[in-house]
């Protein structure tokens, strides 16, 4: 980034005046128009931009919903129904927000698996990756808090179960867990007091995510994007400017993604939720089958697989936290799975494990599901155990000489692509 000069030239007098005082347009031009992107990026690289749009959608719709929502135990449930039925355009904005949460996770999981497959977490992108893990944590907290707000049965009991995770700390220091849980609740059980503070935090966290996203993009623009070959950019021939090339591709990806998004919003807005959440919260009756939102299911399966309360909580938190250590667990010097014959299979095995855990998390806690959840929990953590060894014993395939060679075939000297880029560097 530092070496990359902006081709920005203010034309108007106002533009020149502004550029001498706060060169923000110059910076944006350098970072999002001239910025060199590897010429071989595939559609999996469009999810970063899609995720940014998802965040903006959630914040905009959320601000609107907060104008009509009432965060009290008495009125929360009805106010959500009121938004859906009476508020102008509420029928559209409420499902966009609810479906949007799911779509956000769809995109983020694809984004994470993309990073995993192409080794995007390896040097020099470790900090970028860790920031991503922090964003995932913040997203999960936001998603959980948001799901409690409609104050249906799943909201209430989801809040109860998840906040009670902290009570497992009683097994380390007696009374510590209870102290923390009562601090979170503001009482001796989940109540309207809890709902009110969850609403406040649910409003806060997206802005924390936005801050983390700025750092994430900053780190990305320092290291530069990874690409399907996993090779470093070696010459100008390896890159094209972000505009119009990457931006156009991102736009295509976005249209496809938001087509799916719109399909859920308009035709099955409740498909990704639970029918139980249309029953107002009742502190005296637990639904027979409590399940979190689909995006938490793999972690929920891990929680239930361990037959000890503290152990289950530690395994669940650990299953996300361990991602932060991935840059050092993977010992292979080759980034992309394309050139790693064994890692490729291990990757798909890991994907299958995550899906299997997700399915098991949606099933009741009884045989044979628990035993299978235990098996796949072992597989999940096994992936991170095999990874360091695999890097040492695996012989990588033949890597292309450069990104441009991988795109243009042997003729690395072919300048056609390069000619398309206004080279100013």
């Amino acid at each position, binding site marked *: 980034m530092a070496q990359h000069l902006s081709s920005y030239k203010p034309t108007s007098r106002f533009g020149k005046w502004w550029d001498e005082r706060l060169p923000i347009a110059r910076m944006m031009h350098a970072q999002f128009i001239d910025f060199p992107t590897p010429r071989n990026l595939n559609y999996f690289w469009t999810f970063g931009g899609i995720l940014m749009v998802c965040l903006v959608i959630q914040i905009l719709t959320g601000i609107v919903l907060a104008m009509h929502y009432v965060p009290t135990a008495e009125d929360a449930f009805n106010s959500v129904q009121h938004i859906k039925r009476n508020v102008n355009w509420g029928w559209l904005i409420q499902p966009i927000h609810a479906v949007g949460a799911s779509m956000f996770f769809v995109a983020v999981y694809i984004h994470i698996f993309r990073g995993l497959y192409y080794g995007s977490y390896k040097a020099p992108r470790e900090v970028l990756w860790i920031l991503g893990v922090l964003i995932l944590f913040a997203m999960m907290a936001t998603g959980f808090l948001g799901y409690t707000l409609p104050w249906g049965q799943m909201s209430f009991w989801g809040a109860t179960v*998840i906040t009670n995770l902290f009570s497992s700390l009683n*097994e380390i220091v007696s009374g510590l867990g209870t102290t923390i849980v*009562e601090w979170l609740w503001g009482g001796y059980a989940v109540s309207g007091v809890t709902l009110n503070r969850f609403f406040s935090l649910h409003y806060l966290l997206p802005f924390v995510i936005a801050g983390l996203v700025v750092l994430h993009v900053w780190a990305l623009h320092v290291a530069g994007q990874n690409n399907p070959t996993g090779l470093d950019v070696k010459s100008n021939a390896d890159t094209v400017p972000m505009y119009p090339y990457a931006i156009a591709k991102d736009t295509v990806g976005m249209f496809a993604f938001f087509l799916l998004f719109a399909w859920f919003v308009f035709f099955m807005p409740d498909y990704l939720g639970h029918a139980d959440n249309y029953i107002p919260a009742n502190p005296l009756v*637990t639904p027979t089958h409590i399940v979190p939102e689909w995006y938490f299911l793999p972690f929920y399966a891990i929680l239930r697989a361990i037959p000890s309360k503290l152990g289950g909580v530690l395994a669940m938190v650990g299953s996300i936290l361990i991602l932060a250590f991935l840059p050092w667990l993977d010992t292979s010097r080759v980034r992309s799975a394309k050139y790693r014959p064994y890692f490729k299979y291990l990757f798909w095995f890991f994907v299958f494990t995550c899906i299997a855990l997700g399915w098991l998390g949606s099933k009741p806690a009884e045989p044979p599901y628990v035993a299978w959840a235990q098996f796949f929990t072992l597989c999940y953590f096994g992936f991170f155990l095999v990874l360091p060894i695999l890097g040492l014993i695996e012989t990588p395939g033949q890597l292309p000489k450069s990104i441009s060679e991988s795109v243009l075939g042997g003729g690395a000297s072919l300048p056609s692509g390069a000619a398309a880029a206004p080279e100013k560097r």
Partner: protein
Amino acid sequence: MTTDAGEASRRDFLVVAGNAFAAVGAAAAMWPFVAQMNPDASAQALSSTEVDLTPIKDGQAITILWRGKPVFIRHRLKEETERARADDTAQLKDPEARNLALPETTKADDENRVKPGHENWLVLIGICTHLGCIPKGQSMADARGEFGGWFCPCHGSHYDTSGRIRKGPAPRNLDVPPYTFLSDTKIKIG
């Protein structure tokens, strides 16, 4: 900055002392913002609830709310009490009585979880000690688990007819709240 002899200078001392002072001050200023989330005065106001036991027939159970928590009051059948007594010698996952009115180390025998002379009445805080769901078993039609007491559907914890954890992920027996018999048919919880 150090002196020629390599010792810490007065300025080093001032820097460390100044920073430490600022850190302690910042932490102290944070405290009200953290502590405001604790249960407030109205939530702390310890209420007590009186319950009339006459309408609860043999084998029936009711659930009432005390301090926002569900409390199970079960009128145990003779067999259920006997089963609980017989299970005193079984392998108990949590060996402590968890009776809030008794010392912490009291053994989890059934007699320590009920009131003497009222062994057919079992009063429990109806919150699974795993993750806070309300176990099934209050209605006779409910699944009561392998030990005939309660079964938590969330993550599969089984409690026996004394409310003791016997199987599943829950770590502790169901708590017995503090309560007294005002008469043979009336109790006061809290």
